[in-house]
């Protein structure tokens, strides 16, 4: 069977990806589930699995090339099976200069070499009628297929698109200017810059801070870990569990502001901010409300490990509904985080620090942790956020809630 391998869509804002490396070469046998390539998105490097078994007959996109989501990057087929539409000849192994690949092809010509873009028949018909090049359209259907809605969306936006600004000439360095070195943004940095700026511009943030006594939680953690069963439970795991339980009670925080409406999510998918050398990524642990603490611990450990080694899978980038950013390991008292759009809130967690507290008129020392919730004021209000933190605090101060 001839199967097209397409640039996968990972995360809702991914429009294109770069083939970083082919792990299989033309002629190699591949089995369903084998990793065949590594793809760099604007966020991370992820592995692409084969969805069928056979021979990797043709690599259509060479390493280093960037192609839109849904574009066919390789063909898997049986050894001697004819591959329709693809001329059987050695693929260029060396990196093909971008300029050559991007040269405009004759309009409407059926280029034998061009990978077929998956598009539904009606999408093709409308594109044909409107004189539209399907390569310009991002498909959101199954497997990145371009469907009618994509074409209609593209056509609706087209006239409004501003002409590209011509490159501005570099201004001559002013006298007395501090000398500097200009660095290109990595794709991850570009994404962080764009998304965080957008968040601060669009979402009116407000902040509520609370201090939590972690004595019992730490004791429970120590006790559970002393059992030596399963993955070691971290403070972050307990925070994820506590947040999931709290979000169950406060669905209005597990939400987004979208098109003048509030979208309350039915799933609780918690993003865990992970600091990498290249920048911050937020892999997502889905359905945290349905998972016991031990499972969260195991899955979070694997998830973070995959993020650190740049081996994230498609499912790790499922859209999150809430984010936890824990800088506790860096000895910080507290901090405030920028909301990860389109989520409605993010929880910034400081270190657990022994602090003097007044209990019954006496000063005692307790392990305390400060957390700050940043919330989108379009979606929710301070009183809700305060009650949210009260419950969150209770779950951690009476941590049997986390294992009940």
């Amino acid at each position, binding site marked *: 069977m001839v199967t097209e391998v397409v640039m996968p869509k990972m995360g809702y804002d991914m429009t294109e990806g770069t083939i970083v490396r082919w792990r299989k070469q033309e002629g190699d046998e591949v089995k369903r589930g084998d990793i065949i390539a590594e793809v760099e998105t604007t966020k991370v490097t992820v592995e692409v699995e084969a969805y069928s078994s056979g021979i990797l007959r043709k690599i259509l996109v060479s390493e280093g090339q960037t192609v839109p989501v849904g574009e066919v990057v390789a063909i898997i087929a049986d050894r001697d099976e004819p591959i329709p539409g693809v001329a059987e000849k050695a693929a260029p192994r060396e990196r093909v200069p971008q300029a050559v690949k991007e040269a405009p092809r004759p309009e409407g010509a059926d280029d034998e070499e061009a990978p077929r873009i998956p598009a539904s028949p*009606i999408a093709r018909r409308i594109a044909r009628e409107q004189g539209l090049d399907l390569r310009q359209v991002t498909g959101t*259907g199954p497997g990145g297929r371009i469907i009618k809605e994509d074409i209609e969306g593209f056509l609706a936006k087209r006239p409004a698109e501003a002409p590209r600004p011509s490159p501005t000439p570099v201004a001559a360095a002013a006298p007395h200017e501090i000398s500097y070195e200009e660095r290109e943004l990595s794709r991850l940095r570009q994404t962080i810059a764009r998304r965080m700026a957008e968040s601060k511009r669009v979402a009116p943030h407000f902040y509520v801070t609370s201090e939590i006594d972690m004595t019992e939680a730490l004791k429970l953690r120590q006790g559970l870990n002393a059992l030596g069963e399963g993955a070691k439970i971290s403070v972050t795991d307990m925070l994820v569990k506590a947040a999931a339980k709290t979000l169950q009670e406060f669905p209005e925080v597990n939400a987004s502001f979208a098109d003048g409406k509030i979208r309350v999510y039915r799933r609780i998918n918690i993003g865990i901010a992970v600091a990498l050398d290249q920048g911050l990524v937020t892999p997502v642990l889905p359905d945290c409300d349905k998972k016991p603490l031990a499972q969260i611990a195991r899955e979070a450990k694997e998830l973070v490990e995959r993020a650190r080694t740049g081996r994230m899978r498609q499912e790790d980038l*499922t859209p999150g509904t809430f984010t936890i950013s824990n800088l506790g390991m860096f000895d910080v008292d507290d901090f405030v985080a920028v909301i990860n759009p389109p989520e409605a809130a993010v929880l910034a967690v400081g270190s657990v620090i022994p602090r003097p507290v007044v209990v019954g008129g006496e000063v005692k020392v307790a392990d305390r942790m400060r957390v700050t919730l940043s919330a989108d004021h379009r979606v929710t209000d301070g009183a809700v956020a305060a009650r949210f933190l009260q419950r969150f605090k209770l779950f951690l101060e009476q941590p049997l809630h986390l294992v009940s």
Partner: protein
Amino acid sequence: MITYREALHHALREEMTRDERVLIFGEDVVAYGGAYGVTSGLAKDFGEKRVFDAPIAEGVIAGAAVGAAMGGLRPVAELMTINFALLAADQIINHAAKVMHMFGGQMSVPLVIRAVGGGGAQLASTHSQSLEPMFAHVPGLKVVTPATPADGKGLLKSAIRDDDPVLFIEHALLYRVRGEVPEGEHLVPLGKAAVKREGKDITLVAYSRMTLVALQAADLLSQEGIEAEVVDLRSLRPLDTETVLASVRKTHRALTVEEAWRTYGIGAEIASRIQEEAFDDLDAPIRRISGVEVPLPYAKNLEQAAIPDAQRVMKAVKELLARTGV
């Protein structure tokens, strides 16, 4: 509101009153009122010359019907279930369907064979089959599969008046279903599908009891903002492709729902016709829901698992409408 059983009974009674050439025979149609009670009381009212029991020999029943029809009568033969039509297949396929064509149109075969199809009543593998695709395959036959009491009445009356042999397939689980049925002269044309529910997002093509399953799924989907259009084929041969195509041209997606097995089935035929005639209107591949390809199990849980239900339909619809971008 009357039941499907009553609607069929009314059709028989009205046609027997209207046309004295109409006669009924089959196993236990007199005292027992037929396998599912449809002919109950007709022998008493029309006499045992027009309503009479046949021996347990389906080849004889169908063969006698062919002969009676060729001789100028309008027989309505009842086979206890469609499963026993296999014993009568030679009479149905080699005779009823062929006579007019092989004898240059000198005579027609205006018979109706009523039979029950479908599973879900724990009657096990040999008594629960949906064999309508086998008969719908045969040119020269007409095959009708009503889903509602009103269509049951209207199609049965039209079938009796039709000059070609009609296999009229009822469904075992529909007899107690109630619905509005026009009194008196109510005819539903053979070979004409009906849009049973309007929608804009996807076309569900079904027939017989699966029409009700499709409608149930459409109601549930509607609560989630998905508007499915339901087309009830009503007749499998002649097949009304135009109604299906018009719907698909509106919704751009299609899912077929049938209780019969999938391979070489009604859904396959519908899907093929859609892509032949309306390829450029499709926004997604056409999918099929069908009975699981096993001899239907007797055990209730396994039987239920093998017959399509609204949940399966909903799942397939959602997959067809799925977007990868969230």
